[in-house]
Each structure stands twice: as structure tokens, then as C-alpha cells.
């Protein structure tokens, strides 16, 4: 049949819209940092996404070669500035492994306590920013109110709210001030009932489920192929957490601690607590599950903090001394990954006998988590792009280093 004979309305069917390139960013109004996404679109449908990163690149690894191991700690703060304690911990552990230095029991429990506290703070920001990405402002105000209390606790411990530099190679910079544990306990008691409020705001909100359920579905195979870790991997139903499955040098920090690794296995999340039910409209590995894993991890972190406080009280007040600023690193090459809130944060140090590392390497978790974004957005709508990017919980300071 030739075209002339067709009904004009039918011919319209064949009309193709032009491909269009749309630039998203680099200024993002939310808390993720400076990310630029170049979208190739066909009408409303995204056919490809090219992330452009590097706007916050400071070449922290080069700086690491020019300062000593202890001096690099403040630079790790500024990578993932939302989880500075966990970043300090990663670098400290890898340097300690190279030096063969172990910390005392009490130092170990303090480290668990502050890094889990920071995990809660990070997940609160993740949830807050995610709600904001989807046009929901209330969770932002509520979670930031709670996070503020954690930052106040950090301020008492180390003087800084975000850039803590509290955990250093060899130990920590100081004990908790008097009465701090009680204030921490008060915070936990106040915080516990509020989690249910967050759940009612987002988890079971019909709008939130419609915006996130089935959007950006990440299969476990693809997650592993792209090196996705942390809540992004566990949101796809892989029970993998380097606090349990990682290097013994790291896992023994969590010896004697009890916690669940949050992941949906055989259609079920761990049922150690009362969690809201999983709605029917969501698919394993979608944006909603990544969000849900974070919310449940907050509860596990609270469990860990309570245990750490108990262990802290039971152990002798013996402290490990931080290494000297000019401490010489032996020859050797060590790589160690820790479970940072955003995923597996790896640090590598190559010592050459001097105080300055020959090479300091940071393997960023968000870097790998972002690399999968094109796969997740392809075929979806433009409006779903923020829903996917937000669910990955990115911090560009860590990606760009």
C-alpha cells in the first residue's frame, strides 16, 4: 500500500520525533554534588545517559603521595564528607595493616560506635535527599533534624561536625567526654520511635511507591559486573557485607557483635524487628528496595551502637596511641576494603620505607555505583532519571576525589 492512500492520521503514526540531547547539571540543587548527565532522548524516553564527572577532582591520591600517612586523614574526610568517620577508618585500617599494628579492645569498640553512628547520619541524608529528588520536602526537614543531633555528638567528641579526623592510624584522637554515652543513649531513645514516622512518610506512601517501584531495576549479576556494592548491591538481593565477608583485618573489628545483613533473600527481609511490609508494586532490585535497605540498616546500626556502648563500659580504659606524624611506613603493598555507608570503600597504600606513601589509592564505592546509571536509566522516562540517581546515594566528593 502506498503512502498516499493511507488515512493522514495513520501516517502521523510513522512520524519520528528527533533525537535530542538534554544536559542535566552540572549544578544539582540537592546534596549530591556536582554531577552532569548528558541524556539522549527520544521524546520522553531516555535512550542513553553519559555521566560527566570530575568537577570536584582534587587528585587526592597525588596529595597522598606528598603527605605522610597520618597527614592524609583530613583529606579522606573530604572525600565522602557525609561519612567522614568511615573514610577515616578505611585509611587507618589499611595503614595499620601495613604497620602490623593492632588496637586495644576499647579503641575497637569506640571505632564501631562512631562509624555506625556515622552510617545512620549518612543514611538519613540519603533518604532526605532522595525524598527531595522526588519533590517531597518533609523527610528532608525531619531527617536533618535527627542528623543534627548526631553531628552535635560528633562535635563533642572531636570538635568537628563533618570533617571529623577522629579515627587515625594507630588509634583514635581521644576518649569520649564525660556523660557522652548517656547523651548518645538519649539520642537513640528519641530516634527510635521517629523511624516509624519516616516509614509513614515515604516507605508506604502511595506516591513514593509509584515513583520508585519498578524504576531502575538492577539485577544481581549486573550489580556485581559493575562492581556495585553496599546498599545498592544488597537492594538487588545479594547478602554481601564486608563487615561479615571482608578481610579478617576488618571483620574482626565486628567480632562479638550481632547484626543482620539486610537483603531480601527468598522474598523475605530479615524479620528480627517490626518492619513495614514490602508493597506489591515493587520489584527486587528497584529504587524502592535500595531505599528500603538503607532504612533497615539504620535499625541494625542502632543495634550495633547499643552493643558497642555495652562493650565500651565492660572493657578496661586502655588506649592505642596514634602513630606519629613522621612514622615510617615499611615496604609493602596493602589493599583493604571497608563497608562504608555507600558501599565498599577500598584504600591501598604502598610503603617504600619513608613516612610518605609511595602510592595512596582510594577505590570509591560511589564511583562504581554511578557507572551503572546508564544501564538503569535506559528505556525509562526523563522524570525517572532523578529517581534512579537519587537511589544510588552518590557523593561526588568521593567519586571525583
Amino acid at each position, binding site marked *: 500500500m502506498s503512502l498516499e492512500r493511507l488515512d493522514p492520521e495513520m501516517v502521523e503514526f510513522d512520524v519520528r520525533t528527533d533525537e535530542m540531547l538534554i544536559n542535566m547539571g552540572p549544578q544539582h540543587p540537592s546534596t549530591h554534588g556536582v554531577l552532569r548527565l548528558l541524556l539522549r532522548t527520544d521524546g520522553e524516553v531516555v535512550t542513553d545517559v553519559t555521566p560527566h*564527572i570530575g568537577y570536584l577532582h582534587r587528585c587526592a591520591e597525588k596529595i597522598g603521595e606528598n603527605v605522610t600517612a597520618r597527614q592524609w586523614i583530613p583529606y579522606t574526610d573530604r572525600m565522602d564528607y557525609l561519612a567522614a568517620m568511615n573514610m577515616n577508618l578505611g585509611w587507618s585500617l589499611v595503614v595499620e595493616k601495613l604497620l602490623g599494628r593492632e588496637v586495644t579492645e576499647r579503641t575497637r569498640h569506640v571505632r564501631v560506635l562512631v562509624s555506625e553512628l556515622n552510617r545512620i547520619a549518612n543514611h538519613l541524608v540519603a533518604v532526605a535527599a532522595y525524598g527531595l529528588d522526588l519533590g517531597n520536602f518533609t523527610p528532608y526537614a525531619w531527617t536533618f533534624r535527627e542528623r543534627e543531633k548526631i553531628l552535635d555528638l560528633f562535635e563533642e567528641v572531636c570538635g568537628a561536625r563533618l570533617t571529623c579526623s577522629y579515627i587515625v592510624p594507630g588509634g583514635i584522637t581521644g576518649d569520649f567526654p564525660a556523660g557522652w554515652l548517656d547523651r548518645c543513649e538519649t539520642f537513640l531513645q528519641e530516634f527510635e520511635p521517629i523511624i516509624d514516622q519516616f516509614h509513614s512518610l515515604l516507605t508506604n506512601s502511595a506516591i513514593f511507591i509509584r515513583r520508585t517501584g519498578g524504576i531502575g531495576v538492577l539485577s544481581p549479576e549486573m550489580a*556485581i*559486573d559493575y562492581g556495585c556494592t553496599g546498599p545498592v548491591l544488597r537492594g538487588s538481593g545479594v547478602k554481601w557485607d564486608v563487615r561479615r565477608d571482608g578481610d579478617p583485618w576488618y571483620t574482626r573489628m565486628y567480632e562479638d557483635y550481632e547484626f543482620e545483613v539486610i537483603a531480601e533473600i527468598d522474598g523475605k527481609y530479615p524479620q528480627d524487628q517490626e518492619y513495614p511490609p514490602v508493597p506489591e508494586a515493587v520489584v527486587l532490585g528497584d529504587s524502592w528496595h535500595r531505599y528500603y535497605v538503607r532504612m533497615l540498616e539504620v535499625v541494625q546500626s542502632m543495634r550495633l551502637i547499643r552493643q558497642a556502648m555495652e562493650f565500651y563500659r565492660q572493657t578496661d580504659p586502655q588506649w592505642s596511641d596514634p602513630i606519629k606524624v613522621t612514622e615510617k611506613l615499611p615496604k609493602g*603493598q596493602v589493599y583493604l576494603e571497608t563497608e562504608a555507608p555507600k558501599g565498599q570503600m*577500598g584504600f591501598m597504600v604502598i610503603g617504600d620505607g619513608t613516612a610518605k606513601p609511595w*602510592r595512596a589509592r582510594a*577505590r570509591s564505592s560511589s564511583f562504581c555505583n554511578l557507572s551503572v546509571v546508564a544501564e538503569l536509566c535506559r528505556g525509562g522516562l526523563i522524570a525517572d532519571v532523578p529517581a534512579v540517581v537519587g537511589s544510588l546515594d552518590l557523593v561526588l566528593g568521593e567519586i571525583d*576525589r
Partner: protein
Amino acid sequence: METQAIIDKLREKFAAEIVGSDLETFDPWVEITPGSVPQVAQFLRDDPQLRFDLLHCVTGVDYFEPDEKKAAKVDWEPHVEVIYHLSSMAQRHRLVLKVTLPRWKDDTPGQLPEVPTVSHLWNTANWHEREVFDLSGVRFVGHPDPRRMLCPEDWVGHPLRKDYEMPTEYHGIRAR
């Protein structure tokens, strides 16, 4: 699997490609020839007993001492090392794969050394190899998208090279 067993298995199949190994160090490593990277990597990933499904990280390390006094004391020849950190979630073991390259291809300064890509085996390698190219100056042959990762596309030089000199000026912006 124990690291020794993994390396024995590799030796069985790629005896000629294995240059060295160290099991006593913190992270046991095995060094292979640059040309054999895709074959060895594919074997490591697909062999049912090895199943290295997760590539953590690709790192480039420049071994070069610009200070002549210090250079006389070091016990290595100048070279560039590319390190692959692998692990298997299924089999729960780890391995570090290393490749040694010349600092410059054919000893011509400015000509980047080359190693075949593994980005078709692990997608993690795609961005990591771009980063190593960008910062450490190693060309990954066969990479589908060999652009710079973190530095601007018109940036000159590779910052993690030890003899890198920071430019004084970039598009009218004073840099030093």
C-alpha cells in the same frame, strides 16, 4: 580456594605467561605478561572453581624516582605497574593480578605504554581503566570509550606520573 591452589591452577594453563608471584605478602599477587591479560582474566572469571566475578579496582602505579640522589638507592628499574584486585563472591577467595609495563612505549617519552583492556569481562574495568589512563598514563588497547575520566578532556599530562609537572596556567586560570 587457597591462593597457592589458584596460582597452581593458573600455572597449569598459563605457565609461560606467569612472570612471578608472592604468597607471603599481605595481599598475595601473581604477575603475568601484559599480552596475556585478557586470556588469563577470562579464565579467572569463567572457570567454575575460580569464578572471580568481582573486580574491585584497577590501579596504576608509577615507579620512577625523579630525584637523582634517591634514584641511585632504589632497587627497581623505572616502570609502570597495573594492579587488578579481584575477588570471588561465589567461592570467597581473592587474588591480586599484576602487570609490569615500560614507562613509555618503545622508550619514547610521550608514547603511553599499552595493555589490553578487560572491560569486556568486567564492566567495572570500563571506568577504572579510563581513570588509570587519565591519571597514570596507560593506554588500554580495545577500550570502548578511551576518554579521560576525571581531568578535562584537553588536559595535558598524567598527574599520577612521578615526573608530572603541574601546568602554570589552564585556559587563563592561574594554576600555581
